[in-house]
C-alpha cells in the first residue's frame, strides 16, 4: 500500500550512492533483503512490499555491509538516521560471503547487532539451522518464501517495535534475553519454519 507523496526506496544495488530517500517513516518496517538470485530478490521484494514494508534489496553480503556502512572501504554517504534498518533477511548460500558470514559480521557490530537477522535457505538442514540460530539469527525460513512467512515476520517486527519503544529495561537485559531465547529455540520445523519459542514470551 504505497502512500501518496512518498518516494519509494527503489534503487539498484549497483548505484548505492545515488538513490532517493523518502522522509523517514516511523510506521513502516525497513527491511534489507540480501540474495544473489535476481528471481528471488524480485519475489522477496514484492512479498515485503505487499506486507507494507520498505525494502532495500542487494545482491551480496558485501553490498549489504556497504549499505549499513560496515564495510571499511566504501560506506554509504547517507546519514545513519535515515538508514534505519529494522530487519535483515538474507539467503544462506551466496557466492563470496555467505548469509552465515554476513550474520556473524552483523552480530559482531555494536551498532547493528540488535537488528534481527533472518536466514533463508532452500536446503532444510538441521545443522545449518542450528548453526544460524546459535550465531544469533532470529529465524530460519526454508525457501520458497511465502506470504505467510513474511506476514509472520511483519507481525513479529510490529510487536518488537512496540516493545522497544515501551520498555524501560536497558540493553544488557535484551542481550541476556536474546541468548536465553536462542538456546531454548524449539527446533520444530513446520512447513520449513523454525519457531523460536521464547520469542512469544517476550511480548507477554
Amino acid at each position: 500500500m504505497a502512500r501518496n507523496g512518498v518516494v519509494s526506496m527503489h534503487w539498484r544495488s549497483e548505484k548505492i550512492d545515488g538513490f532517493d530517500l523518502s522522509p523517514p517513516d516511523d510506521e513502516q518496517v525497513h527491511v534489507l533483503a540480501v540474495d544473489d538470485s535476481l528471481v528471488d530478490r524480485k519475489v522477496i521484494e514484492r512479498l515485503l512490499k505487499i506486507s507494507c514494508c520498505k525494502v532495500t534489496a542487494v545482491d551480496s553480503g558485501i553490498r549489504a555491509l556497504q549499505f549499513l556502512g560496515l564495510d571499511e572501504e566504501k560506506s554509504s554517504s547517507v546519514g545513519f538516521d535515515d538508514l534505519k534498518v529494522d530487519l535483515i533477511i538474507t539467503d544462506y548460500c551466496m557466492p563470496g560471503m555467505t548469509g552465515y558470514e554476513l550474520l556473524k559480521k552483523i552480530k559482531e557490530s555494536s551498532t547493528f547487532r540488535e537488528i534481527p537477522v533472518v536466514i533463508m535457505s532452500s536446503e532444510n538442514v538441521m545443522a545449518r539451522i542450528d548453526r544460524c540460530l546459535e550465531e544469533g539469527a532470529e529465524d530460519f525460513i526454508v525457501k520458497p518464501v511465502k506470504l505467510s512467512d513474511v506476514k509472520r515476520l511483519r507481525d513479529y517486527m510490529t510487536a518488537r517495535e512496540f516493545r522497544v519503544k515501551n520498555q524501560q529495561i536497558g540493553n544488557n537485559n535484551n542481550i541476556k534475553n536474546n541468548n536465553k531465547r536462542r538456546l531454548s529455540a524449539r527446533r520444530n520445523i513446520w512447513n520449513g519454519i523454525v519457531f523460536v519459542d521464547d520469542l512469544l514470551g517476550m511480548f507477554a
Partner: protein
Amino acid sequence: MLGLGADRLRADMNRLLALLFHQGVLDEQFLQLQQLQDESSPNFVSEVVNIYFHESEKLLRNLRGLLMDRECSDYKKMGIHLNQFIGSSSSIGAKRVRNVCVAFRAASEQNNRAGCLRALELLEHEYCYLKNKLHELFQLEQQRLLAAGVRYPMQN
C-alpha cells in the same frame, strides 16, 4: 459479446493452469506469485517468469558447455549452476524442472557423465515444455485483458 470472449479466455486460462498443476509442472508457489500480482504490480508474474527464463537459458548453456568438455568436466561448477537452477525453479513453482535438476545434481555429485547427459536432455525438454505453456498462459491473459478492457474502463 466481448464480455463472453473475456469469460471464455478466463476459462481457458484456468483449464491450462489446472492441467499444469495436474501434470506436476507447476506447484502452489506459482499460485503464491499470482497472489502477489495486483493493480500496483499488474505484470508481476510475467516479469518474474521472464527473469527466470533469461537466467535459466544461461544456466542451461553453461551446463551444456561444461558437459561437452570431455577432457575435464567440472562437476563442481555444474553443481553450483544446478543449485541456482533449483533455487529459482522452486521460487516460481516450476516443480518438474526443479526435480530434474535435483536428479541432475545427484549425478554430477557422482561424476556420472552418462547420467548427467541424460539429465540435461530431460531438463532441456522439461524447460521447453514449461516455457511454451507459460507463454501460452500469458498470451491468454493478454487476450483476456484486451477483451475485458474494451468493455470496462481500464483507468481508475
